[in-house]
């Protein structure tokens, strides 16, 4: 007992010293922020860049992810960790029990939430539907001006297809501008883009200055300062949007109450049948955009927006200081900030086809970035939980934590619980009996038996009208969860060492498949 107590005290002392050091660092932090000039009617390049990089950081530093943890979060984390480690020496059973019980409760609540969202989405009310005829018949004079922002970096191979896809957008030429946002030192992509555009002036290349951080949101912010449309949308370089999507979004925003600041179009993949990973990815996206987001919209909860095909009212973007250039899931963060500001997001029934990641390594890179970004977003918005509670309410706060925080957390915890389960089957350790009191045991059992099956079943339902290979992929979806856990572990390590590092996703991996399809037309068709 004496040794354990001494060890616990030692850990407490170490933690205390670390906390004091953190406080000292925090107190020396500069608060002398830059001030955006308001005296000029036309911004200079310096203003644009400053807005792109520092706009949010200056206006609302507590909402910026330029530092993942605020000083108080860091101090609180250190204290909690120290106390937990110290308590492990003295009351290790109780500490482990609390940790297991908490994780199980999060699991259980997340399971219930996802079932509820799925159930809500089934009524079809969460999606605004505007059919093609209605979109075409909308008076041209009433259509607002539109800016389409398309950031691209080191993607010369997709430029030609990208420009062709963008030119398919059905919107009056005098009311649309397409801005291709390219990094100024990315000469290959710049050349490829200029070749693809040719002499036409319907697509404009905007060169984004080489300035840290080199992230997609920074490019978007910069592009925003060059844009003129009253509605703004973004597409990724490999996107193939529904040609009528801009019309549908404009109509939806026109009809929606003014507090609806954004509508999100559905994202799907044009290469779902490329391999098993793309099939799983397709199923997941189908669940995400057809069930979970419409469900969240019905609950008025903060919606973590998808990376592309979200259509904003221009003034709202400026009011909120646009995207956070330091957040690697700037889309999800912006959705939460909009909700905090009292705005809502909607979902429209229009599809943008993207390229599903077909390569395992590339997929892990992309997914770990998403998980890292979700964790960043959670930590940023929980810097002042009481403020967040006042702004969005208790229910939405819980929904936000469960959805945005629960997604990466559960993927991270899965391997641990799988290990516990295997340990139980192999060794039947008595310790596990003690760590799983009745309520925790039953919750865990329900999550394991019912939860896992229900999630897999929801995936099967989402591909009800697809072909047999997609059904088979749905049956095998638990293997996809293993991939998610690998990505979550990577994200967890990255958030400690490189929280704002943007791991680039490689696009154009479906090109080989297209060549194969062209050579062999009898092979399985690629949707759409």
């Amino acid at each position, binding site marked *: 007992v004496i040794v354990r107590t001494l060890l616990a005290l030692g850990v407490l002392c170490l933690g205390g010293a670390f906390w004091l050091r953190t406080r000292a660092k925090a107190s020396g932090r500069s608060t002398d922020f830059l*001030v*955006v*000039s*308001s005296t000029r*009617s*036309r*911004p200079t390049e310096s*203003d*644009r860049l400053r*807005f792109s990089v520092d706009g949010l950081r*200056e*206006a*609302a530093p507590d909402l910026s992810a330029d530092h993942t943890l605020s000083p108080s979060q860091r101090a609180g984390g250190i204290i909690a960790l120290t106390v937990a480690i110290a308590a492990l020496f003295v009351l290790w059973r109780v500490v482990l029990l609390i940790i297991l019980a908490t994780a199980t409760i999060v699991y259980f609540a997340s399971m219930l939430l996802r079932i509820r969202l799925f159930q809500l989405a*089934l*009524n079809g009310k969460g999606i605004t539907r505007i059919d093609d005829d209605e979109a075409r018949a909308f008076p041209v004079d009433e259509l607002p*001006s539109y800016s389409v922002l398309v950031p691209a970096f080191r993607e010369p191979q997709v430029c030609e297809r990208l420009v062709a896809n963008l030119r398919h957008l059905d919107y009056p030429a005098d009311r649309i501008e397409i801005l291709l946002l390219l990094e100024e030192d990315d000469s290959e992509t710049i050349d490829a883009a200029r070749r693809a555009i040719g002499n036409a002036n319907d697509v404009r290349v905007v060169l984004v200055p080489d300035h840290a951080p080199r992230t997609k949101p920074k490019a978007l912010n910069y592009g925003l*300062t*060059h*844009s*003129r449309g009253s509605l703004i949308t973004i597409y990724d370089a490999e996107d193939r949007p529904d040609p009528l999507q801009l019309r549908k979004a404009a109509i939806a925003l026109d009809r929606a109450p003014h507090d609806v600041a954004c509508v999100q179009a559905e994202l799907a993949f044009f290469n779902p049948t490329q391999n098993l990973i793309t099939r799983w990815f397709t199923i997941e996206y189908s669940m995400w955009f057809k069930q979970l987001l419409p469900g969240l919209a019905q609950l008025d909860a903060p919606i973590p927006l998808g990376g592309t095909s979200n259509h904003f009212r221009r003034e709202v973007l*400026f*009011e909120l*200081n646009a995207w956070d250039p330091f957040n690697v899931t700037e889309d999800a963060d912006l959705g939460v900030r909009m909700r*905090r*500001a*009292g705005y809502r997001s909607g979902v429209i029934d229009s599809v943008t086809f993207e390229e599903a990641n077909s390569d395992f390594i590339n997929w892990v890179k992309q997914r770990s970035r998403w998980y890292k970004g979700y964790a960043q977003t959670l930590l940023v918005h929980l810097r002042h939980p009481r*403020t967040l509670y*006042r*702004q*969005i*309410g208790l229910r939405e706060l819980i929904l936000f934590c469960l959805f945005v925080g629960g997604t990466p957390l559960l993927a991270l915890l899965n391997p641990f619980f799988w290990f516990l389960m295997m340990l139980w089957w192999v060794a039947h350790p008595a310790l596990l009996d003690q760590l799983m009191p*009745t309520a925790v*045991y*039953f919750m865990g059992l329900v999550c394991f*038996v019912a939860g896992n*099956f229900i999630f897999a*079943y929801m995936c*099967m*339902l989402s591909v*009800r*009208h697809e072909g*047999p290979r997609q*059904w088979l992929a749905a049956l095998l979806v638990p293997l996809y969860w293993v991939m998610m856990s690998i990505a979550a572990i990577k994200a967890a390590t990255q958030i400690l060492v490189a929280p704002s590092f943007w791991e680039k996703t490689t696009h154009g991996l479906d090109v080989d498949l297209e060549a194969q399809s062209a050579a062999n037309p009898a092979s399985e068709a690629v949707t759409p």
Partner: protein
Amino acid sequence: MTVVLPDRASIEAREDELWESPALPPLSARLRSRIRIGEVGVLTIACLAGYLWVGFWMRDDLHFFVNDALARTSDAVFVTVGRDPHLGAIGFFWPPLPQLIQCPFVPLLLPFGRQDMAGPISSAFCMALTIPVLGRLCTRLGLRRWLRFGICAGFALNPVMIYYAANGMSEACSILFIAIAMLGFLTFIRTRSTPDLITLTVGLSGAVLTRLEAPLLTVVLAVVAGLEWRRLRQSLWTITLIILPPAVCFAFWMIVQWVLLGSPTFFLSGGQLGQAGGVWLPNTIAHPLLAFPWALHWALVLGPALAVALGVLVWRPLDPNTRGTIGILAGAGVFLAIQIYELLNNTGYGDPRYFVTSVIFAAIAVAWLASTEPTMLNRAWNASLVGLLVLGAITGPRSLTNGRLTHIEGECHFFDYGVAQVLPFLGTSYPPSSVDFCGRNPNQLAAWQHLDAYLDGVLQPRDRVLVDNFSNFYAVLWTRHPNQFIVRNDRDWQRIAANPVGTVTYIVTVGDIREGGAGVVPKGGEDQGRLIVNGNHAVWKLVAAFPGGADFAEANATPEVYKYVGPRPPAAN
């Protein structure tokens, strides 16, 4: 168009505005806008109150209970507050859902010492919830208000349904899930939509965890709902999607039985289906060829509307609505078919209560026929269909209490001694049952209450009471210390009973423990093993017997309390 970047002052001004809490209307206003109670809702609430009242009346005034209902409630109490293992009490003989549904009620009833009422309360809730499901089906089928109300009332006020709502058995639970499944089935065959498919699978999954007939019901409904010859591949996937959740539920239950009882198919052995020999059959059903008319008779006296559905099917087999009619009749037919099979194999009880699901199928058939059979005399047709529900509400109870047709104890007690006092025409005018079940229950209840009162007097906080899992686990129902009771699965029970010192202090079982009484032999099988006392412990018989306390009023089946005293030969009390 010139872009003007926002200045800091405007950002800050907007920030103050943005960071204000959004105003929400008061909770009461939001609730009022969401809750709308129609006539079916009023009927549901009234019926729930009525079912609960009847449940307490049966238990407290008629001193009546069904043994199996008490066994299920005991399972629920052990699961909720008993000692480990947590799942030990589920699924000994029966599918587990009716027991699990009782679990939330147990903690609420414990402070009042009335955990024995968890069963009737849960069955009352299940039956009451069936009413809005039926109402929802009528709405989806496009029936008018009065007809919807008539069908719901014709079902809910049927005395047989009232009895099963109040007796704590599994029928109410199965009727609820059958209603949900049929709601999904009849809407899915029209819409082919995912929400309706989910409703169907939820209903079937619940039914599978409630009744042994449900797996066959699942297959039948899945095939009828999903099969489309023109799109065979798609329809096979639909059938798979329908069958998968109930199949997983069934598999999970089998795994539980495997872990707890040593056999995944325990439900197919032992007392559940084994060698029952039709104990509730009258002598008239002696020949196997009479099995089908016997089963058909029970289905039709409980649900006469099924005959009309059968007639419509035969009359217009190629009608677009035939699929729905086939589904309803096939669903009801599953219960008939299994009873016939059991009778032909001499493995069934011949208990008419297995046909009470005909009542819900009949109500659904009425709703379906009213929505699909346009006639010149619509109102008369609809009224006659509802009239068939009323007819079933009269013929059902009268047949169940007819001693020449059956010898079932619960119904005769309820109708002969209870309902007949209020509504004489529902009671029997036939010769009474030759089996003396009706009068024995007060003694049984008193015996258990007496035993629990005794145990409560001697139990110390650290004592644990081991009870066997066949005859004596009712002992947990009236004690003030249910958390000190242990009921183990069969394998563990024999191990612990053989070497209990240090684990348990008392044991409640039947007969002579040294010889292995009925309590340690799982129901229906001597071959499950006998208790073997290894000679390393001794028992002290505390209480000799409480007459009439076990499953049947037999001299060797009365519960006895023993105390483990140490590793020496038993000392006499």
